[in-house]
């Protein structure tokens, strides 16, 4: 059992979810209530990671991270290192790959708030900020929690992108999914089996929470 790899996966999963959730709240809220030109294009763009092979993202990231690219050169100048083969690089990749898993549930959460409720808050003289904290967030919370858990679970299962930009560095980029692949290639079925079972249990628990939340929401609504 590669505890280090598992810990790294959990760190990446929590990190991705923590980074992405505030972003998803801003974007999801706008998408839920505003109408603007080009909205379908924006929604399509944000949904892209759902359908793109992870290798597409991995390829573009690898090229972008390289110090020969404009971005890579700038990053190296600022931080003296490259994003490729680093935890930070994985975090960037993971945040991008998980955008739809965070934005869509948040958007559904805000969409489920009736217009009358928002109008009532407004008529009570609540400021926009106050209404957001006191009315919108409490009502949209199942969507937010679903977004958090889905992002967490999906990051645990990330493999293709990590394989392409990670470099399999223990404690830095060797996630549990990579470690399983690694052990299986090394014909070490025992280690691969133990970790696979652990990841299976974790993922089941996480996705179970999502369905439980969904039921809770529908019973209430």
């Amino acid at each position, binding site marked *: 059992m590669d505890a280090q790899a598992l810990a790294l996966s959990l760190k990446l999963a929590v990190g991705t979810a923590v980074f992405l959730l505030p972003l998803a709240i801003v974007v999801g809220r706008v998408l839920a209530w505003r109408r603007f030109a080009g909205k379908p294009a924006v929604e399509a763009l944000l949904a892209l990671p759902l359908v793109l092979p992870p290798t597409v993202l991995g390829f573009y990231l*690898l*090229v972008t*991270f*390289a*110090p*020969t690219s404009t971005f*890579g050169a700038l990053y190296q100048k600022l931080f003296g*290192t*490259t994003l*490729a*083969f680093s935890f930070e690089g994985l975090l960037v990749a993971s945040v991008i790959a998980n955008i739809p898993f965070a934005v869509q549930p948040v958007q559904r959460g805000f969409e489920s708030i009736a217009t009358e409720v928002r109008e009532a808050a407004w008529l009570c003289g609540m400021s926009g900020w106050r209404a957001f904290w006191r009315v919108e967030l409490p009502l949209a919370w199942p969507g937010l929690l679903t977004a958090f858990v889905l992002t967490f679970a999906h990051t645990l299962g990330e493999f293709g992108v990590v*394989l392409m930009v990670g*470099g*399999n*560095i223990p404690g830095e980029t060797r996630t549990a999914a990579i470690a399983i692949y*690694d052990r*299986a*290639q*090394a*014909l070490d079925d025992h280690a691969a089996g133990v970790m696979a079972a652990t990841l299976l249990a974790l993922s089941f628990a996480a996705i179970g929470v999502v369905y439980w939340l969904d039921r809770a929401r529908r019973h209430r609504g």
Partner: protein
Amino acid sequence: MARLGSAVLVLAALFAPPASADVARVAAASDLSFALEEIAAAFARETGHETRLTFGSSGNLARQIREGAPFDLFLSADEWYVALLEKAGRTDGAGTPYAIGRIVVFAPAGSPVGVDAELAGVRSALAAGRLKRLAIANPDHAPYGRAAREALEHAGAWALARPRLALGENVSQAAQFALTGSVDAAIIAYSLVLTPAFRDKGTHALLPEHMHAPLRQRMVLLKGAGTAARELYVFIGSAKARPVLERYGFGIPAR
């Protein structure tokens, strides 16, 4: 009903195995990426047989073959995996050596690491902290990764290098890491550095054979191999394939 019937027919045609044209299905170590493509083209010109090539780390491929992957011929980057498959009863015979692999240390253009046959430049760059990332293939299942580790051990640089390694899933991926310039140096297959993709991309030094256990590359026919694969097996071991292998930096084993 007739419509359903024709839909089923179309589907069946889509998923049916191709009519039994004799194709050699080859699983090959990724250091052969370019050399084997040339050899397969020459083989097709001479015999008319088509070849289907799959490249990967020898360990990965051996694993798939052991679990029943449909290949006719396996070209490993070492002998060990061939022996493993023979023991598992998946091979037709014990196979034959076809090439001896060599490794190089490569530094992409602009890298602060000097390359030399003793790995002195790598060692001093590691000690000085100038070498931040060194790419090699994964020593756990890629023979070229194992050779790279042995060479680093021989140069007394393994302990320094370990925390700096970026591991490629196979030697081709390690080479690709080096090509993008995201690592400061790489220890990879000589055969890959000699391909067009590497032209003008950096400098390399061939590491002497005594620095690592020889990469005696062995190929073996797998159970159920057809005529095309059997002919290709002979072709790769013949004088016709030798110049290509030599051009890509492989040694030719004595028979």
